[in-house]
């Protein structure tokens, strides 16, 4: 069996387990390549029927406009249900407080909004596109990850996961995060996107953009950023390897403007994917800390 078929088959099995085991699942959609891949896998899992759960997008308001455009077209083309909850609403209602200063980001505020959405809409399982190879705390994550009513991840109390027998049993108030593409690497996702000819937002390919440099990273210029006087804005040809909040996603200089050259570039890359994520650079355990708080 070819390795992409193996991974695809494993992921479809997991997605179907979610539909079979839970009453009200949702697919966490960020507009990034991993969640787009997840949508394709879910399509395959239930074809010719429609995907039997909605997409949930936690909108920070600091998105790349290209991502939102892409999201809306995908939802329309596939006839999917989309639920959006806004970080801005939580700020306006005083539930969360916007960070201040040069490194201000809404990435952390997402968690509160996500947990509220889960409670409000009664989702018992949320499918996410996280992968174990992304980060060392994620390497320890289960495929079915049980969270308490505060959304917390307790690394020491994880259920052992044997064979392909996934235990989705939960108490009232708890929910499960499910990661069907746990075993995929960045390169696997790209090879699959190429094989399946899946459309992705244009910012993954080389383009000209206004950027500035900070701490050795190239960040996209936007009005959401608090840019200091000595940080000069210039135009460069770049692309993005991950797509998150505009304030914490760094670009890489690149001329890779189609999928073949992107794959070639990643194969030879000496910096890991999340090396360009400001949110992970806060400390060595930034990801683990966020996951404990209910981050996906």
């Amino acid at each position, binding site marked *: 069996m070819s390795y992409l078929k193996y991974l695809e088959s494993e992921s479809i099995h997991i997605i179907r387990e979610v539909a079979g085991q839970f009453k009200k699942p949702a697919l966490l959609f960020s507009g990034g390549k991993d969640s787009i891949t997840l949508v394709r896998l879910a399509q395959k899992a239930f074809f010719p*029927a429609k995907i039997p759960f909605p997409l949930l997008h936690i909108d920070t308001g600091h998105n790349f406009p290209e991502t939102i455009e892409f999201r809306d077209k995908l939802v329309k083309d596939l006839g999917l249900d989309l639920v959006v909850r806004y970080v801005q609403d939580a700020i306006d209602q005083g539930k969360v407080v916007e960070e201040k200063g040069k490194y201000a980001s809404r990435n952390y505020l997402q968690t509160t909004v996500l947990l509220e959405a889960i409670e409000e809409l009664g989702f018992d399982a949320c499918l996410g596109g996280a992968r174990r190879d992304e980060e060392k705390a994620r390497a320890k994550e289960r495929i079915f990850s049980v969270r308490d009513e505060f959304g917390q991840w307790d690394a020491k109390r994880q259920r052992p996961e*044997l*064979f392909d027998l996934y235990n989705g049993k939960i108490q009232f108030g708890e929910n499960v995060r499910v990661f069907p593409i746990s075993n995929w690497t960045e390169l696997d996702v790209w090879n699959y996107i190429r094989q399946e000819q899946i459309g992705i937002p244009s910012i993954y390919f080389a383009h000209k953009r206004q950027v500035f440099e900070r701490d050795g990273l190239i960040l996209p210029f936007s009005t959401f950023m608090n840019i200091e006087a000595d940080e000069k804005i210039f135009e460069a040809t770049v692309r993005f390897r991950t797509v998150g909040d505009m304030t914490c996603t760094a670009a890489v200089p690149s001329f890779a403007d189609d999928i073949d050259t992107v794959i070639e570039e990643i194969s030879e890359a000496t910096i890991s994917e999340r*090396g360009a994520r400001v949110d992970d650079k806060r400390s060595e355990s930034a990801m683990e800390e966020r996951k404990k708080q209910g981050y996906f």
Partner: protein
Amino acid sequence: MNVLKLATAGSVDDGKSTLIGRLLYDTESLTKDRLEAVERASRRKGLDFTDLSLLTDGLVAEREQGITIDVAHIYFHTNKRKFILADTPGHIEYTRNMITGASNSELSIILIDARKGVVEQTYRHFFINTLLRVPHIIVCVNKMDLVDYSEEVFYKIASDFQKLANSLSSGGAVHTEGKGGAANITFIPVSALHGDNIANLSEKMPWYIGKPLLEILEEVDTDKDWNSLPARFPVQYVIRRDDKEFPDYRSYAGKVISGTFQVGDRVMVLPNQLESTITEIRLFEDTLNQAFAHDSIAISLADEIDISRGSMIVKSNAIPLINKDLRAKVCWLSENPYRLGTTFILKHASSEVKAKIQEISYKVDIENFGQAVLSVGTRLTSINEFDEPVKINEIKLNDIVKVHIRTAQPIFYDLYAENKANGAFILIDSQTNATVAVGFLE
């Protein structure tokens, strides 16, 4: 290119992390920023070398205590294969972690420190791999640089290990019944630190006539067995659609866990035991003539039969066992011991049934074995299972016991020894929802 899932098991100082680091390094899977992060962390800890274990210890508690707590998954690839490695720590919860790692692996690497030879842990590792019937085992005799790359040391350890393997398989401690046979064991002398016999053959050990580790990992054949087993298709979900394009469409979604199915095959649906014929095998927009083991597909049948999640479609000429009284070896995975009279949810394939333990027949003794591995010989055969029935009322973390389980509805299964994919289950505590045990049907 295909996938190999493998597990490594090891105790604290046998160089497992170094071996994994070496495999990542030699397959160019380590990016510069990750390597630099490990170098920084090593310096912060006051080490004068790069501690590659920091690559895999992903949790704060692990890095603080310098131990690995949980199974980590590590990914690397060569031009020939993608590898998914479950790195299982050798600490307090060793058995639980090792079983978890080995349950999804086609191959296990057991590390032995060349200076220490076969020790208690080695036995434990091998025992668990045998219990789970991991088909391929590679014994890496590591730190050969510290024994002057001695041929004699290597062959002494290999022979000790082989003796252990022989006595275990002849002693009936684990599965002797059923087909499938013993694991395929390969011995390699390595120095993970210096890269000897990892990616390339070592010039220091010209006497070694085998292949380097990575080449063996690339070549191990794993696909062939699954397709030749009886065809099993647990139904996960029912797909329906009714419009102009797909009038009155209905199919059964699931994964072929073993064997193959073809359009036109005569099949039986369980639990109803009604027969029908496969009219369509589908994956997304493609209809297929045949589906193989591990394929996630959707099957349509000629007749309208009541089928739902938990049903199983099998070929009419090879029907599984259908039973409510089950005999199994069970390994306890929970910190909370088994309390007499507890009821469980038994999860097997896509079905879930209520279950209780009727009787604990005996306990497999791997805890007290360790003291005298090298001189065991015949002791191995008798000590693993008590011949005399001993009344056991408690099952604790890491215990392995033979039990009689009674379920509310029958399950459709094969013996674990004959078909791993349809012969294992988990027990879920109905009070706490925790996964408390894994079982292997006999």
